[in-house]
């Protein structure tokens, strides 16, 4: 019994493994951090345009936006990643002609490209939901006071919509962090990629445990920070409710 307990402990705290391969986990974490941050930021900018297109009265624009977000929200991210990564390989001559092959050649850019498009679809839906939850009456009231469209958007609609969108945007960031582990499948050495690498060398399952703990810690950290941000921005709402 003692034997098994000892085995179990040395499985959980495998210092030899951490000493030899710990730096790989740190290097992987850096790549994960980069890919997620860049993708989510690009996705955020894109989502504004997708959302505007979606809410526009132009049928073609809004139709295209609906098709876009339906596709990216309705298909597995892994499938999208394969489409971009191996699809680009298939049409290499064309990509070389238009001077884009250097971009699609690199797994790193392929991941950022796919993840950005994917998260933009989700973020645009979050924005749309938030914008449409601001009562129409407020916009009309603003107009009746003679405020310009810009001022109505800047001072009435966006501050409220932003507050509503904040929570779901945080959730989207968290789900992107977890989804980014797929990058390992197309050779990127992110946190998951390095984990797989170490496992391949050692056949030691505890490395997956470490990866899980690291992901969990990041997600929990973001959840808490996001909670603080949310609280700070919604002070007036809380105060009003008292």
């Amino acid at each position, binding site marked *: 019994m003692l034997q098994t307990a000892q085995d179990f402990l040395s499985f959980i705290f495998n210092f030899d493994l951490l000493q030899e391969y710990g730096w790989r986990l740190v290097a992987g974490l850096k790549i994960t951090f980069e890919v997620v941050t860049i993708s989510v930021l690009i996705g955020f900018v894109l989502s504004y345009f997708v959302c505007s297109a979606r809410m526009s009265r132009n049928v073609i624009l809004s139709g295209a936006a609906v098709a876009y977000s339906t596709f990216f929200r309705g298909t597995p991210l892994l499938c999208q990643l394969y489409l971009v990564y191996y699809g680009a*390989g298939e049409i290499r001559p064309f990509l070389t002609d238009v001077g884009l092959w250097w971009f699609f*050649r690199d797994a790193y850019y392929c991941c950022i490209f796919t993840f950005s498009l994917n998260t933009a679809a989700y973020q645009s839906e979050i924005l749309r939901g938030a914008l449409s939850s601001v009562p129409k009456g407020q916009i009309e009231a603003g107009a009746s006071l003679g405020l310009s469209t810009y001022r109505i958007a800047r001072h009435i609609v966006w501050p409220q919509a932003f507050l509503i969108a904040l929570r779901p945007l945080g959730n989207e960031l968290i789900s992107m962090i977890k989804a980014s582990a797929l990058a390992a499948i197309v*050779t990127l050495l992110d946190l998951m990629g390095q984990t797989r690498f170490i*496992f*391949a*060398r050692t*056949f030691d399952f505890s490395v997956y445990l470490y990866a899980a703990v690291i992901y969990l810690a990041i997600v929990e950290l973001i959840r808490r920070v996001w909670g603080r941000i949310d609280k700070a921005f919604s002070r007036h709402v809380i105060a009003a409710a008292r």
Partner: protein
Amino acid sequence: MREKMLLTVVALALAAGISPASAKEWKTVRFGMDASYAPFESVDTKGDIIGFEVDYGKALCEKMKVTCTFQNQDWDGIIPSLLAGKFDVIFSSMNITAERKKKVIFSDMYYATPIGFAAQASNKSNDFSPEALKGKSIGTQSSTIHANYLEKYYKNSDVKLYPTQDEPNLDLASGRLDYVLGDLLVEEDFINNKGNGCCRIVGEIKRDPEIHGPGVGAAFRPDDTDLRDMFNKAIAETDANGTYDKIQGKYFKKSIRGK
């Protein structure tokens, strides 16, 4: 009722745990292979696993008088799956290495093939020394002797690791990779079939005994020494009666038996 069921489950688990492995009479042997490695093992259009190792495995089973089943298993998880009892033997071009011997036991070597680099057909250089390949991207399958070899000797190249050998081959064809390291028979098979002449063999590497070991063997759980002995006996028999030569003749022009 609940407690009773629980008790039964525990009792069954105990019974399964304490029965000594050696007492097992082998009637069926389940083979695990990563079928992305033509011509050794691949999946045909009907979804069946085919290839040299399937034919050879069947011949061994005939000698051992057991029924065989073949199942497909992802390479990265192939040793853990064996240890977890999902199948009884890894028969999947697994090279006998010291690292793997810590987890599994191996049969005698049953084939050894040349290992080398492939590059795009347009690449005319035959120099594949670490200096020549500095900064170049080289792809291979992860958890393989090839991955270990690249890690040891090609530190200054951009080494990319893939879940299967099919994927680096595809990336070599598309030009994403400059080189692929692999079993030359597999690379030749890819170039002549799926690759459609995209690429060419650059050359064969010298085996590093520390990394490559003596060649390919069947891997078993450490307890199943009886099964390993059965395999060793059958391997020797198929060598002696010419069955091995007959099967390899179906797939290869040159002998892969090795020494």
